[in-house]
C-alpha cells in the first residue's frame, strides 16, 4: 500500500469524527510507533498550569465560600451556606453593599453595551469604504486601546476634573457657568464612565466588525442592488444577517468586559458618590484582598459568575433562535 493510499483509506475510516483528524497514525511499518506517553508529555506543561491555577482554584473557591475564611485568622470554621445566606439577607450590611455593587455593574452593562455595539459598527462601516488613508484612520481609532486602563484613567481624571478640567474649561467658554461634576455626582459619573470606556475600547470592537464586513460576499450586495435594494435595505438584509456570528461574538465579549469593569471606576470615581459606582468586581477585590474576608468574597464571585453564565447562555440562545 502506498503512503497516499494509506492516507486515503484512513481518511475514509475516521471520516467526520470530531476528533483528531485523520492521517497521523503510523502504519505498522513506519519507523516511529507512537509511544503511549507521547501526548501526555506534550500536554504536561499546560495541564500543570491549568490544574494549579484554574481547576484547583475553581474547586478551592467553592470550598472557601463555605467557610468563614479570613487570611489572617488561624481558624477558618466551616459555615455551610452562611456566606450566601448573608448576601440574601436584606438587613445585612454585606447584602446591601453587594446588591448596590451589582446594581452599579448592571447599570454599567446596560448603558455601555448598546453604545459599544452600535458605535463601533458605524465606525467599521465607515472604515469599510474605499478611500485614501484607510489604514491610518483605522490605526488612530484603535490607538487608545493599546494605552491600557491606567493611562486612560489618569488622563480622563484630569480632563474631567470638575474645577480645572479641559472639558469644563471649554463648557465655561460656551457659557456653562456651573461646573459639571463629571466625577463626583450622578448622573454625570455614569456619562463619564461610559464615555471614557467607549473612547478607550471602540477601536477594538470596530476592528473585529471590520474583519467580519470584509468577509461578506460582494456578490450578495450585487444581487441586492439588482433587486433594487436601497443602501439601508442592503444593510438590514445583507450586512446584518451576514455579520450575525461576529455580532454574537462582539456582544458576548463586550457584556463580559463591561461586567468585569473595575479600572475605570477605581481610577476615575473611586466608586463615588457614596459607592454608587463601586462595581461588583471592585467590591469583591475590596472585601477579599483589602479586608481579607476571602470566604465572603469568594461567595460573591460565585454569585456574579453564575449570573454572567446565565446571561451569556441567554444571549447565545436568543441570537441562535433569531437565526433559525
Amino acid at each position: 500500500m502506498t503512503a497516499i493510499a494509506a492516507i486515503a483509506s484512513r481518511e475514509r475510516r475516521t471520516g467526520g469524527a470530531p476528533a483528531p483528524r485523520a492521517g497521523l497514525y503510523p502504519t505498522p511499518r513506519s519507523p516511529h510507533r507512537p509511544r503511549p506517553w507521547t501526548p501526555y508529555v506534550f500536554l504536561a506543561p499546560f495541564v500543570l498550569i491549568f490544574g494549579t491555577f484554574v481547576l484547583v482554584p475553581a474547586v478551592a473557591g467553592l470550598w472557601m465560600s463555605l467557610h468563614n475564611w479570613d487570611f489572617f485568622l488561624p481558624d477558618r470554621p466551616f459555615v455551610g451556606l452562611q456566606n450566601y445566606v448573608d448576601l440574601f439577607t436584606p438587613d445585612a450590611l454585606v447584602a446591601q453593599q453587594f446588591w448596590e455593587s451589582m446594581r452599579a455593574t448592571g447599570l454599567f452593562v446596560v448603558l455601555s453595551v448598546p453604545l459599544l455595539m452600535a458605535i463601533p459598527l458605524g465606525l467599521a462601516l465607515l472604515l469599510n469604504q474605499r478611500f485614501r488613508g484607510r489604514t491610518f484612520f483605522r490605526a488612530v481609532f484603535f490607538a487608545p486601546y493599546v494605552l491600557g486602563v491606567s493611562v486612560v484613567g489618569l488622563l480622563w481624571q484630569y480632563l474631567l476634573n470638575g474645577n480645572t478640567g479641559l472639558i469644563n474649561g471649554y463648557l465655561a467658554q460656551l457659557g456653562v457657568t456651573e461646573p459639571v461634576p463629571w466625577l463626583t455626582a450622578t448622573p454625570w459619573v455614569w456619562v463619564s464612565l461610559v464615555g471614557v470606556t467607549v473612547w478607550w475600547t471602540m477601536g477594538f470592537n470596530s476592528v473585529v466588525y471590520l474583519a467580519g464586513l470584509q468577509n461578506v460576499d460582494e456578490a450578495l450586495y450585487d444581487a441586492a442592488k439588482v433587486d433594487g435594494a436601497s443602501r439601508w435595505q442592503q444593510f438590514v438584509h445583507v450586512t446584518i444577517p451576514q455579520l450575525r456570528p461576529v455580532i454574537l461574538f462582539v456582544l458576548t465579549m463586550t457584556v463580559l468586559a463591561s461586567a468585569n469593569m473595575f479600572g475605570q471606576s477605581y481610577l476615575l470615581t473611586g466608586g463615588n458618590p457614596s459607592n454608587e459606582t463601586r462595581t461588583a468586581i471592585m467590591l469583591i477585590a475590596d472585601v477579599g484582598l483589602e479586608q481579607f474576608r476571602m470566604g465572603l468574597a469568594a461567595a460573591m464571585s460565585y454569585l456574579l459568575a453564575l449570573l454572567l453564565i446565565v446571561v451569556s447562555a441567554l444571549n447565545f440562545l436568543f441570537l441562535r433562535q433569531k437565526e433559525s
Partner: protein
Amino acid sequence: MATTAVPASSTTRPVPAPRTRRDPATGRGVVGTLLLYAALLILSVLILAPLLWMLSTSFKTTGDATALPPQWIPPTPTVEGYGRLFADAQAPLLRWLGNSVLVGVLHTVLVLATASAAAYPLARMRFPGRRLIFALVIGTLFVPGFVFLMPNYLIVDGLGWLDSVWALVVPGAASAFGVFFLVQFFQSLPAELEEAALIDGANRWQIFVRVVLPLSRAPLATLGLLSFLGSWNDFLWPLYVLFNPERLTLPAGLATLRGAYATDFPAVMAGAAIASVPVLILFAFVQRFVIAGVARSGLKG
C-alpha cells in the same frame, strides 16, 4: 444633489464622466467623499486631542496646567513635571516600564509554548483522557476569570510568589482560549505534510517543531499579541499581588501617582506620557500586524 441623478450604470460606459460626478472606483460622489473625510477627521480629533493635551500638560508649570481658557501650547515650557517624577524614589517609572515589558514577554512566551504543545496532541493524536481534557478546556472558556481571584491569591502566596513577577507571569498562562484557537487551526492543516515527515522518520516532537509550528505563524502571532496586550493592560491583579514600588508594573504603578500627585497635573501627565509614548510609537510601526491579529480573533470565535 446633482450626484444622485447619475444612474449607477453610467460607470460601465467608456464615456469619461465629469469630474464632479461619482468616482468609478468607490461609487461615491464628491459630496460623499467630503462627508466621509469630515466624519473621519472629527473622530480622529476626538481620539487624538486628549493625547495631545496630555503631552502639552506634561511640559507645563503647575499653574499653567489649570489655567483658563485652556492653553494648548505651554506658555512657559518646562520639564519640571518630569523632574519631580524622576526625583521620586517611590515612582521609578522606567523600572515600571521595564517590569511591564518583562512580564508581558515572559507571559506571552509561556502562553505560546504551553498552548501550542497542548493543542497539538489534542488535534492530532488519539489517547485516553483526550475528551476529558478538551471538555475541561472548553468549559473554562465560559467561566469569568474573577472566580479564581481569591483561591489564586492563596496559591500564589503559598508558592512564595507574592510581590514577584511570577505572580503575574504564570497563573494566567493556562490559556483555554489559546488551546481552543490552536486546536481549530491545527485541525485545518492538511495532514499530508506531517504524514510525509513521519514516513521520513521524524518523531512527533520534530514534526511539531519543524512542520506544524512553521505553518502556524499567523495564529501564533494572533495569540501572542492578544496575550501580550492582555498582560500589558492587566490592572486588578498586579494592584493586589505587588507591594514594593520597585516591583510594580506600569498600570499598578501609575495608579499610585493618582494619590501621590493628586493636584500636580504636569507630573501625573508626565507619568502618563512616559507610559504611553513608547507604546504608541511601537504601535505605529506594528499597527497592521496588531490589527490583523485582533481581527482574526473574532473570525475564529
